[in-house]
């Protein structure tokens, strides 16, 4: 760590987010604002300079400036990203911050999922990257649902879902232009919601949505597979999932186009053309 400390850091900040203390520092004071913008909203300055994890960002040179200097990112003493493109390293920091906080958050369990609010209840769509959950979340938002998250379902001890504030954007390669405005930006003041429906699905071209209902236990193990702190805090994860799934309808199946599923999600028991198998 001393070796990295000697690199010369010009600006830094200690913050607390989701109960976790994090330090950010950089060799260019102007870059600090950009680092802070990568934090999930709701952070506050830490009262102590002692942090659980320190990220150090060294600003590289832009193209066409003679000698090339890489932008670098360190997690404590370990280098975790290096690129001539500063944006690439900042993206890495954003992704790293999200994952670290998701794993360590105090009093919250993060499940990798998209979330929308619908008539006072949350619809949770767990899934890995590229499983098509963002497309589904976007379709539900267009149909009038309230956007809560495109990244994580943040569950509290009572099993309610809190909003996770990241802008909703699609990365399907065709629809998302780099500077295109996000489809939805979350309202940070949204109330936490009890979960009304969990949809476990993946996209397959031409497939018809014919879900089957999962029992609470089956649903629990499906959600655990997407729970960030499953290894670090399994007892907390299991008890939170049990509360979340108590009395919750959980549907699983392959889907085709998102529009075909929206009606079912909105009215799971009576959506047109949907048969739910037990």
């Amino acid at each position, binding site marked *: 760590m001393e070796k990295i400390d000697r690199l010369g850091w010009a600006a830094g900040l200690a913050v607390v987010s989701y109960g976790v203390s994090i330090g950010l520092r950089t060799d260019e004071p102007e870059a600090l604002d950009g680092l802070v913008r990568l934090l999930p909203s709701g952070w506050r300055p830490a009262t102590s300079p002692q942090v659980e994890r320190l990220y150090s960002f060294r600003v590289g040179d832009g193209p066409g400036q003679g000698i090339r200097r890489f932008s670098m*990112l360190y997690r404590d003493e370990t*280098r*975790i*990203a*290096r*690129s001539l*493109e500063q944006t*690439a*390293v900042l*993206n*890495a920091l954003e*992704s*790293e911050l*999200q*994952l670290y906080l*998701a*794993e360590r958050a105090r009093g919250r369990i993060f*499940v*990798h999922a998209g979330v929308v609010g619908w008539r006072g209840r949350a619809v949770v769509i767990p899934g*890995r*990257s*590229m499983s098509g959950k963002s497309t589904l979340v976007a379709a539900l938002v267009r149909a009038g649902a309230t956007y809560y998250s495109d*990244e994580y379902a943040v569950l509290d001890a009572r099993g309610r879902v809190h909003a996770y504030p990241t802008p909703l954007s699609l*990365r*399907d*390669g065709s629809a*998302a232009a780099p500077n295109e405005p996000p489809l939805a930006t979350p309202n940070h003041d949204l109330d936490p919601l009890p979960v009304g429906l969990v949809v476990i699905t993946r996209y397959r071209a031409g497939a018809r949505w014919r879900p089957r209902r999962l*029992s*609470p*236990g*089956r649903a*629990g*193990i499906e959600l*655990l*597979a*997407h*729970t*960030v*702190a*499953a*290894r*670090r805090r*399994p*007892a907390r994860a*299991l*008890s939170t*999932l*049990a509360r979340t*799934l108590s009395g919750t309808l959980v549907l699983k199946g392959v889907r085709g186009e998102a529009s075909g599923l929206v009606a079912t999600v909105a009215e799971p028991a009576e959506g047109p053309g949907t048969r739910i198998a037990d």
Partner: protein
Amino acid sequence: MDCQARGMPQARTDQLVVEAMVDETLVYDLRRHKAHYLNRTAALVWRCCHERKSVAETAALLETELRMPEAETVVWMALDRLERARLLTDLPSFPGPRLQYARRQVIRAVGLGAAATLLLPIVDSIVSPVAAQAGSCLTTAQCEALTPPACSGQPICGDPKGCCVPRGGRCRDRNC
């Protein structure tokens, strides 16, 4: 010893986190970082292992609670599944080769109808995800800062075809 009077193996209790979900049970193995799903039948048999009931007593319980015919075979099937998931402390003394407790064999031997097959014991297991597996994609810069075996095909953000895979002793963003 006649198997009717045979005692059940002891259920494992150490290094486990257990969460009951209505009739089913989720078990997290802290030693192996595996999570197990036990359906109602498997959960009942596992509970009987905790209570040190005999195979005959457990079979009687299944017959009463689940209306399960030929329940003793089903008890042995459940013990087979629980033992494979390492949820028992000792190996059950099976009254014959374990192959006979394959699902298809049991259905044939017991003559179960379609509805009753749903009551057969199920123990499904997953390896618990590390944080990065449960999380989102990696950026190219993150991927290329890793070294194998940390890259195991994680998706690359913004590239539907990109995966972070080992190449020449380093991790690289390549087509999946």
